[in-house]
């Protein structure tokens, strides 16, 4: 039996986040099995915990985590380190697989090859964002949130709960859920802008 255990620290600095990204690039370029094993060790237990919170059954969660990691292998050539950090990209794979399996449909997304796609041509858009640095900033900003705000953010991503269900689960008024979330988002955004 596998139980839920306290987290091992994720990437604490951009170098570590970059290593995760380079593993995905290596899988894409040379089908590097060693790099894949590293990715697996880091992300599979996280994806399993994510799936468990939606599915409630550890066998099911194990299977979905394995399936998500297969997709990481298969889709590695679509990963663009300029557009997302490894953790962000793997989160979207897990999210889409969850919607596919639990709700029997595809997550509707923007198609980058859509001829109607409108590209930002303002000068600011040229500024290159370092996605790995950004991911680490988001993570530390999140860790610094007061506990009551952090739990609302976590529940938003980790459980299929509406705001009123979150309110019920935490036994607080709906308005409080909304205001904590708003505070958290302002703080997260403020933290990021303060640095860049």
């Amino acid at each position, binding site marked *: 039996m*596998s*139980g839920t*255990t306290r*987290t091992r620290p*994720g990437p604490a600095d951009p170098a570590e986040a970059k290593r995760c990204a380079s593993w995905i690039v290596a899988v894409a370029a040379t089908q590097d099995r060693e790099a894949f094993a590293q990715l*697996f060790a880091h992300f*599979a*237990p*996280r994806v*399993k*915990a*994510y799936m468990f919170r939606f599915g409630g059954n550890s066998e099911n969660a*194990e299977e979905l*985590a*394995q399936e998500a*990691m*297969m997709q990481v*292998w*298969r*889709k590695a*050539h*679509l990963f663009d380190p300029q*557009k*997302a950090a*490894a*953790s*962000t*990209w793997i*989160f*979207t794979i897990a*999210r889409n697989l*969850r919607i596919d399996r639990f709700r029997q*449909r595809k*997550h*509707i*997304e*923007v*198609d*980058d090859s*859509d*001829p*109607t796609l*409108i590209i*930002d041509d303002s000068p600011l*858009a040229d500024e290159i964002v370092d996605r790995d640095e*950004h*991911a680490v900033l*988001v*993570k530390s900003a*999140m*860790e610094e949130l007061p506990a009551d705000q952090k739990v609302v*953010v*976590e529940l*938003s*991503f980790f459980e299929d*709960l*509406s705001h009123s269900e979150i309110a019920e689960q935490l036994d607080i008024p709906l308005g409080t859920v909304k205001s904590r*979330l708003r505070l958290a988002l302002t703080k*997260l955004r403020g933290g*990021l802008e303060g640095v860049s």
Partner: protein
Amino acid sequence: MNIKHHPTDQTLMDYASGKMSQAMELLVATHMTLCPKCREKVAEFEALGGAALETANVMSMDAHALDHVMAMIERETANENVVFREMPSTRRVAVGESITGSAIPSVPRPLANLLPDNVLSLEDIPWKSLAPGVKHYQLKSIESKGTVRLMKIAPGVSIPDHGHHGHEMTLLLKGSYIDEIGRFRAGDVADLGNDVDHQPIADTAEECICLIATDAPMKFNRLLPKLLQPFIGI
């Protein structure tokens, strides 16, 4: 395109965390196709999802999980000649439909994917008449929760006065309208909370086409006798 009205941050976060009805997702993805700002915000919220993944609890995998996955990958690689790489979808959408003033040049793909194959522009939609000056087309939903429809409103006509339970969003695709909140043009989204009564009016000489998504059925206050509603699927 000069978009002034966007979905709220909360809406974009719900999209990124994957907890919206498919009807709402469709509207947000269609707006995002036209709005680089909201694409970037969603990317930020997805990074927040990644951070949540990094900071939350972990659950240890079965002892042989990696071997198992590697074995499946080997098997797949052996059959590789068949299909290996997942390619981006290639459904063709006609580009360069005559650009009439403020219209979206052709149908953004998230929406186009749910229209019949022969519909290449907003003009080809098999509209059904709903009331004088108001036509609609109900999209095949997809998920029972929520509804999504296109509406075409003649100049000067107002969308039937309606309040709603739950969340409603309107994305303007052509023309412009004005309501209690302000003026909306192609690409703009009105992201309304619960229990708002509003009555948008197509306010230029051009007809107006919009996509409306709700989490709950719309209720029209006037114009349509309540009795009729079940028959036309509103």
